[in-house]
């Protein structure tokens, strides 16, 4: 019962903050609402018993990504009023219609699907924590994608240096 209440409270918060992100007129406020949104999602993960994902959510999203956004917002100095960003072809309205259509479709699909939740492959042992379990999986079962991700990060690093430096 408590979990259900917690879920609905958090879900409401997430939706409200998401709405504020796209309606706030000040870009910095918008980014801060986004951070609140990320934090609420992290709380949702805790509720699901996924502490590791929750911590990562806070570190990476609420931490790193929000700082990155704030940095960009302050760098490009968005002082112009929002009116000057209006698109002349009114594609924004088309976007709203399409988004609404997708929303209706998703709700319909969710409503019509009577699918039992899939059995979770590996039960989390109550003694060893969730984080430890994830660590074991990363370094054993998923070692190959984990190692490949390190190459991916190397590529990203090389690319970032290459594209941002004026002359090497």
């Amino acid at each position: 019962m408590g979990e259900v209440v917690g879920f609905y409270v958090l879900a409401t918060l997430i939706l409200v903050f998401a709405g504020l992100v796209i309606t706030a007129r000040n870009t910095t406020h918008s980014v801060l609402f986004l951070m609140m949104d990320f934090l609420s999602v992290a709380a949702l993960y805790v509720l699901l018993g996924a502490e590791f994902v929750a911590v990562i959510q806070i570190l990476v999203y609420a931490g790193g990504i929000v700082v990155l956004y704030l940095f960009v917002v302050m760098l490009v100095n968005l002082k112009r009023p929002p009116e000057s960003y209006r698109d002349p072809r009114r594609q924004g309205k088309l976007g709203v219609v399409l988004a609404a259509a997708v929303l209706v479709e998703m709700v319909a699909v969710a409503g019509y699907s009577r699918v039992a939740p899939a059995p979770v492959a590996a039960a989390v042992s109550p003694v060893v924590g969730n984080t430890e379990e994830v660590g074991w999986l990363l370094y054993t079962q998923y070692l190959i994608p984990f190692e490949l991700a390190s190459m991916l990060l190397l590529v990203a690093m090389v690319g970032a240096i290459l594209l941002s430096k004026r002359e090497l």
Partner: protein
Amino acid sequence: MPPGLELRDFAALLPEIVLTVSALLLLVADVLLPRRGRVLASIALAGLAATAVALVPSANAHLEVANGLLAVDRFALFFKAVFLAAALLTVLMSIGYLEVEGARAGEYYFLVLCATLGMLVMAGSIDLITSFVGLETMALSFYILAGFIKPNPRANEAAVKYFLLGAFSLAILLYGMSLLYGLTGTTGLRVMAATLAGQPASPLAALAVMLVAAGMAFKIAAVPFHMWAPDVYEGAPTPITAFLSVGSKAAALAMLLRIFLEGVPSLDADWRPLFWLLAVLTMTVGNVAALTQSNVKRMLAYSSIAHVGYVLIGLVAGSSRGVTAMLVYVVVYAFMQLGAFTVIVLLHRRDLAGDALADFSGLSRRSPFAAFAMLVFLMSLGGIPPTAGFMGKFWLFGAAVEQGDYVLAVIGVINSALSIGYYARLIVYMYVKRETTGSEPVVSPALGLTLAVAVTATLLFGLYPRQLFSYAEVSARALGTGAVLRALR
């Protein structure tokens, strides 16, 4: 505690390991050696060749390695050979191009090798997580490579467009994948197939399949997810455009086949009509748009969109003949497309992109060899015998007819005829027009070798296709347990 990796796994992963080591060596060599583009290019070539040699020990294997994340089988081998061949030709093509542009060679070849690494993983992956990381490794390398010539504003536009749309499409793909995981509780494709086969059809499964299909359609530039392709192909350095249109598409097709024929074959009632529509739209829009282009790179971009449409016919057929035809076409397409882009590289000068239709005017007088090579590639792209393109299309359309889908085959044939229009226009420019505006092409040894290999392959596979077909057939059969294809028939 889940099991870790064993020595046997590392032995089977030798090609990927060799390629990773070569890429890292290249990065170190770039710092240690004096900045010589040719030395770095030869390291890259040696690394790719060593990777190809490393494929040999497990050439006849049919294994699942790394805890069921990767398959080492003939299907993977077939695609890996295509990727390595495409990467080798791309490096050969790039040597002169980078010298003319004065661009840095070390990072360039490093990124080409990393993109190839991503492709190898995509071809072998039988797990959504591994597929995704492989796809990302490839895509990220290409985002950077597309904007590699920094002073060129068009290259910047290409890189930004490709990055934004690529990231967007990846989000759609991930959403579909997460729904599939939610439905089956696994990311392993083979376990997923077994689980889904026991479930009744649900709208949620259909939605998941649609999202995955849309995400992958972005990567292979199928209409209506193709908008990025012409701009990116035009703006990126020409050798990268070639690699992008061949390697990246082939890798995405390999992943597509793995996911749809090994992971969700039981949902074929959902995805087959979807790909039917995608195939028809892709062929038609690609060809019609190509007719009006005056830039050869753009024209080839639209034509490559159309070719993806032809290839999708094989997936719609879903039979082993269809998949065989797809594999054959991927090889054929790789050589003719890489060859056509090599001719553009040949015409490239520092102040001249070499991709305007007028640059090809009177090419037969300036360089009979280049003009002849282009003629062969264009005939093959148009599907005119005795070139390889004809054999490839013949089998693709044949696969549709075998399944009784005459409409799709007829649309394919009509589109083929339509495409000859714009290929023929370029041939007229090369052979009939007299006034020349383009540069005097100098065929360097590397470019000459690239052209010779591409021309030979295009003619050889057209005249003696038997060997290629038998390889493709064995490889197609390796997909899944074989039971998948039988169930679809």
